């Protein structure tokens, strides 16, 4: 089997990898923003609750959660599809990390900014939405790109819940042809093809953000 054949065999799993990544982002981004903002603005019980949720997703092993959600929950009467389990567990895991980028970026915004907002009579939610978030967004973009790449590579774990992603296809081909060096090198190339554009996009955005920052400071 030639290298090109192996690569095209692996790319048959591209659809699943992309689907899990895309759905994973749908869990990760809203979760990251909601959790990060909540942590930033809350005190007391609400703060404790949201921190517990974040820490649960951040400090547990993805592979065990995948297993638990897919194989254990049905015995408790809760039956999620493989694609739901894969994207939800990976998405919320990455989202929990993302929430710290959101919180960190919000906290890094100069306190004078929100004080200025209050001075001109803005409400708390207006300060958050109109002053803090727009500035924080720029700062969190690079981290988000990193986490997107992490998510793409994390999808390699979904074969545990019967999804035929790229890694799974590589294992299948390996089973038939017993040529792991070539097959796993092809898999490496496949992930690189997928992730490198995101890296380039990340650099481009970072440059843009950097340019934007300078203008802000000039003003």
């Amino acid at each position, binding site marked *: 089997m030639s290298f090109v054949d192996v690569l095209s065999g692996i790319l048959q799993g591209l659809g699943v990898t992309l689907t899990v990544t895309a759905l994973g982002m749908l869990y990760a981004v809203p979760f990251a923003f909601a959790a990060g903002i909540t942590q930033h603005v809350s005190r007391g019980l609400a703060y404790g609750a*949201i921190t517990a949720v974040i820490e649960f997703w951040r400090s547990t092993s993805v592979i065990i959660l995948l297993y638990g959600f897919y194989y254990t929950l049905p015995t408790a009467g809760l039956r999620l599809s493989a694609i739901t389990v894969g994207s939800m567990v990976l998405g919320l895991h990455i989202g929990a990390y993302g929430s710290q980028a959101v919180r960190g970026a919000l906290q890094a915004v100069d306190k004078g900014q929100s004080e200025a907002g209050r001075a001109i009579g803005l409400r708390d939610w207006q300060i958050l939405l109109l002053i803090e978030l727009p500035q924080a967004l720029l700062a969190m973009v690079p981290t988000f790109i990193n986490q997107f790449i992490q998510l793409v590579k994390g999808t390699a774990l979904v074969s545990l819940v019967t999804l035929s992603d790229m890694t799974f296809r590589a294992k299948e081909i390996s089973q038939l042809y017993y040529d792991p060096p070539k097959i796993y090198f092809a898999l490496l190339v496949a992930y690189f093809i997928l992730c490198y554009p995101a890296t380039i996009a990340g650099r481009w955005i970072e440059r843009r953000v950097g340019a934007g920052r300078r203008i802000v400071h000039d003003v």
Partner: protein
Amino acid sequence: MPFSRRRISALLAVAVCGATLTGLDRVAPARAETSEWAGKKLVVGIHNRTPWGFRDKQNNIAGIHPDIVRAVFAPLGITEFEFVVSDFGAMIPGLLAGRFDIIASGVAITPARCEQVLFSEPDVAVGDSLLVLKGNPLKLHSYEDIAKNPQARLAGGRGSENTKNALAAGIPESQVSMFPNNEAAVSAILAGRADAATLSVPSAIGVIEEQRVEGVERALPFKGLIKPNGQPARLYTGIVFPKSSAKLRDAYNAEFAKLRAAGKLTPIMQKYLFTTDDDAGTITTAQICAGNG
């Protein structure tokens, strides 16, 4: 009404906690057992190991157990199968969780597994085989040889019964490395990380004859685990059903007995390089489950 910080945070906390619980498809209804299976689709778990149950080079599902299942269920009117490929370790958990209706992938009947699931009557019985580097440099011809040579390292399959046989034959655990699948165990030999790998005989034949892996050979002759009664240990495989599917299992057994009596099992076995010696014969699942296999 002003939105206080506290108010925003409380709302968001509720939203986030709720979000982690969304995505529920449906609550599984209890699987109804009907007396008639005609036209039903069976979801079949396989773990992609030749020659038991795997996706072949043309992307079709092949293997001795998928072929047996197709032949046995056809007279019952079941002709539609959805094969789900997953890891070996996920087979029985998947069956218990209702992810598959049956497993048709070379699962050996063992007393421990009998407590969790139902097995069909055994179809084939296979012994262990040892793959070694070409020329068998350490001259390994039995599990004893490995146990006697502290330098010899054995590669085994995680959770496989072959590996358990090797340990039962006296090989210390420190000499055994566990690998997730046969490819990894064979690669370990080629990479010099192991000196031998224990596989079932048909799997070992497959590596040499079908996959044509160069640089390894079967250690012949080979003496595996000898049971207290003096017989070589063999693994009996069968189709796996959940405990709730006793009726389907019984129907399967009846049709399987007819298939075997009609001589239709042999061609399926031969297609996957099994010999007539590998037919499980008259031993019953009840005997094996009771530990008398």
